[in-house]
């Protein structure tokens, strides 16, 4: 019997033998041999010394049960098998075996590497909280709990990945979020059979309803206030360990064009700004195709005064409009991509200089017309107004097939593109919920959430699109009560 217990330590040692930082510290204590096992790179050494080693030394009588109940540490667990022990040690816990005892003990003295909280980079705001999520799930949950103190907040733990298990938390507010949605999310997560997931954006793709589409179906955000807002409106969030972005679902097409700033600004401003954004995005998709279609097929549409200007600027261009447009669009994409890959400071200079120099040179050399440069620059600007990076990228790519359709069949081609787009968007769902909601299926009450903003007193109900169990926020009647002149 004694022999086999001795082997338990060796068994764990064998499993972790390939890690040079693995330590097995044996100490004699009251005549018993105590082994403390840990990976030295992962743990907090101060903790180990003060709370584990020193504590063991002070004990009068030593056993696993006694240690488990007395150790001055938060997370202490008793392990039955060597595999369990080894996996805890790999997470940065320390394992303890005592001579002649069958079971082992693990204590959490891990020290995880993480960066400090920073300002949000990809979703930058002018107003409102600036903090963004980090790579550590524990910190992220902490931030969320600070944002939402509602007692109905649920953070359910799930693990994904066979080879490299990943901690995933499904968060929602129990009496607001639709239970069917919660079930769907949990079921999809549970049904994932995959060996590893690297990031939340990958998980979002794995959870997609439709793989063959360029439209993102889940919102990824790094802003705690955006997540808090979405949860309180009945959506579900998915935290993924090691990832600074949180998945929000179910998502509609229009939520990709919202920012939290729309809520922080006064309603008149945010309505106008939202309209500007929508218009910009619309222009971004259709301006260059329109140029191609009109110049190639229907120059009759252009008023004569404008036609002169365009004709003059195009007079030196030897290519058909499609080639011209594709060339310029490609150039802009190239600049953007180069700017994204280069270090920040170099990247910006590159972008501006490259844009101006290349653009000007292209016109001088007679490759493109001035008018097209304006159009392409405008549509590039338009695509950057999309608050979601994913949607911005989608819009940039969407332009190309429509340019081709415009080159093939002119304006009719563009409208074929529009029809295809409409049909496609109508077919899409996110978590089984219609993607184009609240426009179709039409919900008038939700238009104030998705397309425009109204004064705060109109937001007495949560958006129906999310199917909240409890849609009432405050009493509409009280908010709308009118007062007499001198009351």
């Amino acid at each position, binding site marked *: 019997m004694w022999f086999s217990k001795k082997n338990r330590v060796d068994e764990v040692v064998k499993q972790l033998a390939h890690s040079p930082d693995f330590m097995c510290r044996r100490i004699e204590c009251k005549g018993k041999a105590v082994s403390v096992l840990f990976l030295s790179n992962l743990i907090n050494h101060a903790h180990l010394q003060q709370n584990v080693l020193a504590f063991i030394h002070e004990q009068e009588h030593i056993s696993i049960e006694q240690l488990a109940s007395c150790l001055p540490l938060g997370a202490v667990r008793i392990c039955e098998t060597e595999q369990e022990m080894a996996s805890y040690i790999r997470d940065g816990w320390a394992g303890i075996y005592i001579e002649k005892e069958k079971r082992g003990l693990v204590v959490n003295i891990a020290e995880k590497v993480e960066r400090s909280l920073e300002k949000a980079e990809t979703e930058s705001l002018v107003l409102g909280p600036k903090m963004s999520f980090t790579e550590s799930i524990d910190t992220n949950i902490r931030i969320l709990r600070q944002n939402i103190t509602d007692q109905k907040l649920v953070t359910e733990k799930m693990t994904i990945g066979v080879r490299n298990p990943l901690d995933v938390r499904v968060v929602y507010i129990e009496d607001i979020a639709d239970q069917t949605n919660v079930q769907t999310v949990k079921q999809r997560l549970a049904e994932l059979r995959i060996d590893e997931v690297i990031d939340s954006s990958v998980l979002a793709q794995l959870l997609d309803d439709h793989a063959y589409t360029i439209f993102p179906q889940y919102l990824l955000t790094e802003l705690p206030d955006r997540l808090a807002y979405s949860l309180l409106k009945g959506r579900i969030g998915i935290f993924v360990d090691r990832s600074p972005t949180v998945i929000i679902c179910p998502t509609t097409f229009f939520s990709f064009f919202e920012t939290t700033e729309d809520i922080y600004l006064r309603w008149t401003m945010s309505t106008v700004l939202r309209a500007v954004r929508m218009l910009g995005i619309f222009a971004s998709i259709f301006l260059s195709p329109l140029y191609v279609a009109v110049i190639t097929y229907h120059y*009759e*549409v252009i*008023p004569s005064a404008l036609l002169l200007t365009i004709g003059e600027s195009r007079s030196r261009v030897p290519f058909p409009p499609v080639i011209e447009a594709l060339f310029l669009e490609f150039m802009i994409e190239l600049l953007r991509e180069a700017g994204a890959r280069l270090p920040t400071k170099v990247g910006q200079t590159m972008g501006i200089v490259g844009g101006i120099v290349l653009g000007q040179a292209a016109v001088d050399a007679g490759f493109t017309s001035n008018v097209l440069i304006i159009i392409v620059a405008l549509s590039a600007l338009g695509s950057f107004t999309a608050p979601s990076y994913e949607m911005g990228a989608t819009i940039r790519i969407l332009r190309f097939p429509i340019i081709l359709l415009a080159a093939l069949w002119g304006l009719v081609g563009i*409208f074929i593109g529009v*029809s295809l787009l409409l*049909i496609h968007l109508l077919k899409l769902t996110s978590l089984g919920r219609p993607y184009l909601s609240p426009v*179709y*299926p*039409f919900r008038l009450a939700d238009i104030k959430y998705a397309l425009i903003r109204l004064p705060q007193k109109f937001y007495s109900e949560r958006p129906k699109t999310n199917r909240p169990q409890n849609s009432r926020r405050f009493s509409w009647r009280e908010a709308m009560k009118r007062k007499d002149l001198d009351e």
Partner: protein
Amino acid sequence: MMKTPNERLSVNAYLVFFLVHTAQMGLGIVGVQRVIFVEARQDAWIAVLISGLWIHLIVFVICQTLKLSEHDNIFSLHTFVYGRVLGWIVNAAIVAYFLMAYTSILLGYVEMALTWMYPDFPLWGGALILVLLTVYALYGGGFRLVAGISFLTFFMTIWIVVVVFQPLKYAEWIHLLPILEATPKQMMNGVLKTSYTMLGFEVLYIIYPFVKEKERVHRYAQLGVLLTTFLVAAVTVVAIAFFSPKQLDVTIWASLSMFTIVKFSFIERFEYIVIPLWLLVILPNLLLFMWAMTRGGKALFRVKQKYLLFVFGCLSFFVATLFKQRATINEFIDQVGWYGFWLSFVYPFFLYVFVRMKTWAKGSAK
């Protein structure tokens, strides 16, 4: 009997308004003015109104028919009334009518687009694109998508109505006088010629089971028809006032020709925008008729709708390629209008009587 679709597939009643209206709106309204004007002269707009009234009556009859028995669509009604064999034949005729209607819209649009904008493009190419568009939409889409498309395209195109008022600057209202000069026969012919433009409401027979609140279908269908009648009458009045009688006699696409004088500071020839935009007007037509066809086909052959989609798509493309000239296409459209007139303007009354008799006979047999 076909299964009633479940809750998930059905739509709200208000969508019936959009479905009926967009099913009616289509190519007709682009050139209906000349066709009626040739028959009823300056009283053409009265003919439109009469035909509109008639349709209101028919919509009422259709809704009554569908309420009479547990059969809530035309295909199972036919089997119920005529029995297995005869019912099958009548259903096949209905499907054939939808096929023809679909093809006529296809041809009409392609032909219009080619004449105005792309003289060199082959007709079959345009037809192929539209057929592919329909098949892509319905494959994996189904009825909810059709309803969605009619809802969205309605709002994307209805603003054109505002532009129609611009030609009114040049209107000569004297052209409308004297009123009620047309003889009853002329007026009758006028009404008959309006039918092709107003067709489409017969899809009520098929969409009915897909609506959640059955008791409100009738109201919304009537509203849809009302809007169509109003719009067709309005463009007819405007066209009569805008063109001189001799001009209107030879203007095939009167609405489009009126748009040629519409100008914005950034758009010179407005009709060049309208023709491509009209794709969005006919899209719900194409989808609805194709969908109706596949529903009918399912009742006939008991085959899955998605397979029938390809069969009917190929078939209508094949039929479309048979036509080469404008004259034959026009004849074909007139033919469809003629069948449509009998099927949608007259037959519903008979069907109502038959169903009434059958249910009565069945009830007394028990």
